[in-house]
């Protein structure tokens, strides 16, 4: 597959194994200098981690390598020769494949058809040779250890499986450089392990992997070297064995005293939310939710942990009225909420920061002001007319309070980095007068600096008597920020942990326990298409 004859380990001479080299890359967009001198060297058979806060230039760098942007200055070398990557086709020809966070798969086509889209094997008559197509697809799926039939429509796959299909597609293109943009952001711990296994196998076969992640603990587990980007510059290249504290310091240019600055309340407040017997039938016959019951008190942060597909998001959406449920009650201050009524839930003081920030949280092309004031639009309206001046004032206040970094409230939400976008979604609920804020994966794809700001905000909210229900697949986060952790598995609440009993191992044991005895060892992964 590549010209590399052996499996190179760490510390071999860079010249011999070097696949890709970037020298002094710079790129400006109107008003911003996105890249300002980036050097990077990727060897065959290494996992090179690209680390940096959002806005540090990682996306621009990836887009440069996949043919979306061209550098204003600097050079890109492949095998020591300078190359120009003008299009996705150029990148493909050079053997550079990118697994983006948003997948490029056609939902209605099968796995095999997606893998060979546009280059399906043909019979002599020019028709598509289905048998060869499926044989080749099956071989690729075995390489990525995906237990799915090539004839499965992609629509039926879960996120982790979609990712495997993307990787298989890259392999089928004989990619020598594989760029993975936060591949673990959407995966559960079990899925992450599977992914790591595949990446290690790729490394062993001589592929150079450029790996982007915000999870520092993944770096030591998988990486060989780390290049840290800050403000569009490559500020350091360190071995992956570097400590987390050092990496954070390099990334943000300052020390972050504590990663999870949760201040726990001394005394629990009055009961705010009371959920009893929440039950909803799932799409595949089994229950999506089964008899879920819990309470949340004012001033509390309650974590909701579990595997993807365990029903956490379903609980959040049912409480908030975004989805209907079949049985059970949801009460705020002892008063029951009607089912499937978002407006009633909002009137009672609920707010939902959804998992899918761009798809459900924001109107991307609308201004920051419009996004921030959307949930209180009815309150800013008198006799059908909206008080735009009040909206402007409210938006400015909350943007300042949340330290949203932007050039103006008229900019569209699309122009912001992930962290600042999330602040807008949260700000929307602050302006709506939220009393119970539901955060569904609030820090996914967000840099360390913005994460800490969001944690501080959670503290502020709870100190003011609000409550927070926090769903997160990031175990250190959910343990670090919650006062109590509820664990879900297969639509049920399977346990509650607090204090010293709340450890990663304890959570994982509860989260996977119902899966024991299940003959299908892929069940954890397949559960993900529910979530």
């Amino acid at each position: 597959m590549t010209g590399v004859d052996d499996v190179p380990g760490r510390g071999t001479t860079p010249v011999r194994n070097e696949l890709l080299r970037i020298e002094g890359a710079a790129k400006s967009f109107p008003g911003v200098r996105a890249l300002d001198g980036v050097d990077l060297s990727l060897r065959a058979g290494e996992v090179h981690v690209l680390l940096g806060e959002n806005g540090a230039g990682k996306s621009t760098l990836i887009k440069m390598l996949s043919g979306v942007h061209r550098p204003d200055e600097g050079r890109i070398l492949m095998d020591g020769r300078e190359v120009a990557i003008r299009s996705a086709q150029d990148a493909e020809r050079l053997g550079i494949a990118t697994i983006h966070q948003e997948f490029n798969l056609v939902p209605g086509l099968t796995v095999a058809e997606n893998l060979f889209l546009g280059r399906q094997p043909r019979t002599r008559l020019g028709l598509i040779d289905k048998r060869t197509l499926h044989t080749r697809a099956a071989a690729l799926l075995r390489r990525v250890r995906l237990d799915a039939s090539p004839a499965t429509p992609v629509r039926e796959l879960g996120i982790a499986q979609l990712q495997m299909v993307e990787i298989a597609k890259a392999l089928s293109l004989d990619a020598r450089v594989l760029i993975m943009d936060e591949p673990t952001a959407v995966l559960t711990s079990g899925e992450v392990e599977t992914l790591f296994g595949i990446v290690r196998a790729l490394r062993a076969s001589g592929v150079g992997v450029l790996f982007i992640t915000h999870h520092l603990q993944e770096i030591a587990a998988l990486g060989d070297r780390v290049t840290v980007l800050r403000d569009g510059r490559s500020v350091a290249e360190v071995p992956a064995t570097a400590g987390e504290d050092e990496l954070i310091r390099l990334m943000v240019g300052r020390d972050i005293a504590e990663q999870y600055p949760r201040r726990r309340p001394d005394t629990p407040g009055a009961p705010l939310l009371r959920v009893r017997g929440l039950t909803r039938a799932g799409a595949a016959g089994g229950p999506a939710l089964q008899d879920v019951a819990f309470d949340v008190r004012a001033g509390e942060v309650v974590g909701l942990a579990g595997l993807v597909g365990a029903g956490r998001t379903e609980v959040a959406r049912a409480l908030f009225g975004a989805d209907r449920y079949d049985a059970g009650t949801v009460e705020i201050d002892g008063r029951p909420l009607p089912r499937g009524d978002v407006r009633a839930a909002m009137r009672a003081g609920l707010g939902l920061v959804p998992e899918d920030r761009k798809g459900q949280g924001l109107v991307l092309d609308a201004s920051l002001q419009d996004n921030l004031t959307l949930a209180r639009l009815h309150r800013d309206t008198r006799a059908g007319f909206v008080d735009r001046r009040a909206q402007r004032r409210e938006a400015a206040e909350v943007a300042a309070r949340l330290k949203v970094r932007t050039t103006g409230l008229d900019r569209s939400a699309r122009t912001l980095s992930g962290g600042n976008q999330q602040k807008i979604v949260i700000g929307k609920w602050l302006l709506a007068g939220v009393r119970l804020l539901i955060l569904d994966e609030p820090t996914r794809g967000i840099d360390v600096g913005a994460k800490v700001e969001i944690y501080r905000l959670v503290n502020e909210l709870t100190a003011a008597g609000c409550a927070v229900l926090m769903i997160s697949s990031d175990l250190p986060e959910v343990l670090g920020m919650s006062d109590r952790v509820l664990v879900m598995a297969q639509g049920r609440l399977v346990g509650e942990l607090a204090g010293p009993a709340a450890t990663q191992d304890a959570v994982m044991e509860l989260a996977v326990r119902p899966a024991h005895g299940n003959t299908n060892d892929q069940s954890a992964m397949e559960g993900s298409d529910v979530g």
Partner: protein
Amino acid sequence: MSAEVLRAPGTTSGQWLRGAVLRNGPLGGLVALVVVMAVLSRDFLNGQNLLNVGVQASVTAILAFGVTFVIVSAGIDLSVGSVAALSATVAAWAATREGLPVWLALLLGLAVGAVAGLLSGALVAYGRLPAFIATLAMLSVARGLALVVSGGSPIAFPASLGGLGDTLGGWLPVPVLVMAAMGLLAALVLARTYTGRAMFAIGGNEEAARLSGIDVRRRKLVVYALSGLFAAVAGIVLAARLTSAQPQAAAGYELDAIAAVVIGGASLSGGSGKASGTLIGALILAVLRNGLNLLSVSAFWQQVATGLVIAVAVLLDTLRRRSTR
């Protein structure tokens, strides 16, 4: 249409010019078109002719203001031409054939337009039909009802409403005034009302709007009802100009209206659009027709030219969006 006024340092004047053209696409296009027509035809820039252009633009523009609401909320309304004809026919039928007071007949015509829109809206919001299909059905139903009510032949429009198609003080055409009033109303609705702001949110991201407490379905009803109401006004203005309500009037006008909205910079995928842009779009179409008539270009070639203008306008707008992103 939130044009970025940020001028990056170090851009050359050529880039600046290109940026300026792209930023002010629709208006720049209109100005350029007027200049070209003025150069090619001596008669174009005369006051009387310009007022004619205004009159010619008025019906399309009023229809298009209504369609702007629908397009901003990521829908489409194909029925406005038929609804315009139905509303005018009902108003004329009520006044001329049934002898109702003129003001009541007028109200009835407007109500018919609003109800037709409301029905389309109900099919879209509650029946979950694609807007294209729901309003295509209404296009056929409304046209059919107009033929039924009128028996297939034109009905004389009440003489007291003839003023709507006439001039004030012998020079200012009333259709232009109505167009201006409806344009201001549309701008007000879009920029300042709950329904208007909700339109942008729904068109930009319907799920996010719903999860932020916007009553999406009820807003859609209002949006289509407004479109029907604007169509009724356009139909009555047209009938007043023609002094009779014709059941076959305004056929195909829905496409002109959609073209005007899109030329004006709105995106068919929703979330953007302005009343001023729509007005400019309608004026561009009217200037083009009027100018080509003055130049004695055949009606066949006029259609070709109109199509090209639509394509170029939207192409420029796409480029503009890409450059400001």
